[in-house]
């Protein structure tokens, strides 16, 4: 399951579509699970009439969580040591998101091996919605 330093090289990529046709219901599921009930994410009337947005939109943390699924599928359970992103663009109902990890470095610290990754998620128009980095402990 876990990655091996021997089998990796800088420039390797791993990609997954992490959501297709994002539903308002999934955004509500995320609100319920995370506890962030900000009505900009679930209340169409509030967000269009009072807050001035064209529709509800996803929590940034939902985009990060969806992207995190690609990462843990790639590096294995419990192997992430760092994960950070900037939210560069809002994610709207109906969006498709594809998340990509690219190997930027392989390093050793003490007896342990690590991989550093660039992490990006893009929508169906190729626009970046989440951009960041991650690191994971890997096998030798």
């Amino acid at each position, binding site marked *: 399951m876990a990655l091996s330093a021997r089998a990796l090289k800088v420039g390797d990529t791993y990609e997954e579509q992490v959501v297709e046709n994002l539903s308002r219901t999934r955004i509500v599921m995320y609100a319920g699970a995370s506890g962030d009930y*900000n009505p900009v994410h679930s209340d169409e009337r509030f967000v269009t009439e009072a807050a001035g947005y064209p529709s509800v939109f996803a929590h940034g943390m939902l985009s990060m*969580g969806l992207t995190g699924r690609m990462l843990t599928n790639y590096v294995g*359970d419990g192997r992430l040591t760092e994960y950070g992103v900037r939210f560069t663009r*809002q994610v709207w109902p109906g969006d498709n998101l594809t998340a990509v990890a690219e190997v930027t470095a392989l390093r050793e610290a003490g007896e342990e091996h690590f991989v550093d990754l660039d992490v990006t998620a893009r929508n169906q128009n190729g626009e970046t919605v989440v951009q960041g980095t991650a690191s994971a402990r890997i096998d030798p």
Partner: protein
Amino acid sequence: MGIEKFPVESSHIMMFARAVGDTNPVYYDDEYASGTEPGAIIAPPTFVQASAQFDPDYFLRPKEGHSWFGSGREATSVKKSGGGGGGGGGGGLHAEQRYTYHRHPKVGDVLRAEVKPGKKWEKEGKRGGTLSFSETVTEYYDQDGELVVTAIGVGVVTGKVVEQ
């Protein structure tokens, strides 16, 4: 500021994993999880954000005896609305989030969160006028006092609504 008790519970992890579309059984099947390297149901990477559920004063949850700014009979219960709060702390939209995992939380952990203000800075935005950024650092400790996850959130308050 902070959260005194954040019990890491299996049904909460299952619901959170479902919300982020993650069907990995390490997040809901304890028999399967016992055979994996972590050895138990662990939390997905962004799960500690759900500690908001255990913050009695969390401002983005309707509370008894307080009006809520979302719609009811009217589009909002407040006269003038901002852009809404963000998970990054300090209000506004969530601009950035970073985690360092000292280990991954697992079912049965009872975490405690210490919240500290971080850096603040301003920037001229291309689409949003003046952007005011503020950082919040949250440290999650386990029942033995060991640091489990360090979370840094950055919130941004924009001068006007950000258009697509």
